[in-house]
């Protein structure tokens, strides 16, 4: 099998995953809800004189992040386990498809879905911004960077959901992934706690603090809501971090899935 065929197969699996997600009604309900929240931000903004922009960006981006994570977890946890349970995998893996190609294809399919979703939800946020400010300002460009960081968060959450889904039930995968999302959102606090703790507890806290995904570093919503700039170095660091973390989680998923018996 040549690498062209390999890349093509990953692409076909990714496209099928994307197609499955966009034909799911749950997805539209979630997007509609996120857009509704962006709209509601306008109302909240209007009662908060002079801080309309802050409220719209804060609420809008939080809605994008939260609903994106919900979609990532809801779809991600079923990516592998649902295919095993429903036995749709049998007719895929009985073709010249390697197991790792399947996992990677599924990951790309889901991240593709989330990128498209984020685009539509982001359009909603920018329309709300335009409504309250009547024009775009230079600092709105940082909102785009914050959105990019949100997408990086999705990448990590997708990879984690896929990792748990490769060996556990959908329900347990959802619990694990959501727990890691919450802990990861508090990663900076956890790291601070690890520094001031001594002994075995300190070592344990350090290990956990660096093992969980540092999602708080990817949350720039508050800064951009206040119109603060984001250093370009942080964009680079965050990109590398998110890609490496996702790659590790996907590698873990592949290693487990390679050995799994599909009963």
């Amino acid at each position, binding site marked *: 099998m040549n690498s062209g065929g390999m890349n093509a197969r990953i692409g*076909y699996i990714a496209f*099928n995953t994307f197609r499955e997600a966009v034909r799911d009604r749950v997805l539209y309900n979630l997007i509609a809800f996120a857009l509704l929240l962006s709209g509601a931000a306008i109302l909240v903004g209007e009662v908060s004189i002079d801080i309309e922009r802050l409220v719209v960006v804060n609420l809008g981006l939080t809605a994008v992040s939260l609903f994106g994570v919900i979609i990532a977890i809801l779809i991600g946890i079923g990516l592998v386990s649902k295919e095993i349970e429903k*036995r749709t995998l*049998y*007719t895929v893996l*009985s*073709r*010249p498809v390697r197991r790792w190609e399947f996992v990677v294809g599924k990951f790309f399919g889901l991240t593709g879905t989330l990128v498209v979703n984020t685009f539509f939800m982001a359009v909603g946020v920018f329309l709300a911004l335009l409504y309250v400010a009547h024009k775009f300002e230079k600092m709105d460009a940082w909102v785009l960077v914050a959105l990019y960081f949100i997408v990086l968060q999705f990448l990590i959450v997708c990879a984690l959901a896929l990792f748990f889904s490769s060996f556990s039930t959908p329900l347990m995968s959802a619990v694990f992934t959501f727990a890691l999302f919450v802990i990861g959102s508090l990663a900076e606090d956890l790291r601070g706690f690890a520094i001031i703790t001594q002994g075995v507890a300190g070592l344990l806290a350090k290990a956990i603090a660096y093992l969980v995904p540092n999602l708080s570093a990817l949350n720039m919503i508050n800064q951009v809501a206040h119109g603060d700039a984001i250093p370009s170095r942080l964009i680079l660091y965050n990109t590398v971090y998110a890609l490496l973390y996702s790659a590790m989680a996907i590698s873990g998923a592949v290693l487990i899935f390679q050995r799994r*018996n599909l*009963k």
Partner: protein
Amino acid sequence: MAAIEILDLEKSYLVGFWRKRPKVALRPLRLTIEEGEVFGFLGPNGAGKTTTLKLLMGLVFPTAGTARILGRDMDDPQVKSQVGFLPEQPYFYDHLTARELLNYYGQLSGVPAKGRSARVEQMLARVGLSDSAGVQLRKFSKGMLQRVGLAQAILHDPKLVFLDEPMSGLDPMGRREVRDLIQQLRHEGKTVFFSTHILSDAEALCDRVGVIHQGELRGVGAVAELTSETQGRVEIVFFAEKVPAGLANLGAETRVSGDMVNAVLPEQQQDAALDLLRRERIQLISLTPVRRSLEEYYIQKLRPAEERQEDERREENRKGASV
């Protein structure tokens, strides 16, 4: 060249929550299927048929042993482009239409883009789904899904086709169509390995059958040979309204239906029985050796080891006596 060479493939699972213990799903299996052969893998539910197919497809991993498929190691991904597989009670992506699903599988199997659509349409027509090609699979009946399953198994023109219970869930018409399809595959020179517990299908289609029970291959044989073996008994049919006296003395089991009598008796008594009928001026309709049905062979292979040995001893004695 052998299409499939199974070399002591075996599988056991660990079961239990606290104290895990191995449960044998397949005892060491050694079996060779020749190219162009239609092979029926027979056995009751839970016998190990599906486990064998899953092992060959790389869906589960063997505890020991290996297999060669079309001359290559079964782990070689190249093998898969030459192999088609229909799982038992197949379930497909129900968000796709039949046409989309086949196109997707065509892509994964490496069917060239040029001509892929035409091939998909051809397969849809072959399984009688052209009219439903644009309908999402979630609206398909069980029988229609089975047809889609067959279409995807032969879509990429494989040399070897594995079918796990291909007739299950089908109505009599559907079963007949599947039988015709397997016949066509045979004419095209494909090797077909299919599992079933419907013996009439196996008898009608297979060159050879293997019987598996409790994870153990109990016997393999050519259908023609298995069913041509006589039981050392003959069946005589003649016109009469009652059984002639003296036939019972020859060890005949008789059945009267209307003006016909059907008598089954040992081969050695055949001449004596015919003399009797001649003496009584009874008109003979037919005399045929009693053949063993595939069902009898199957049932025999499913019996416990001691009973099977006893059967075999009796069979040997009978053959010895008749020589």
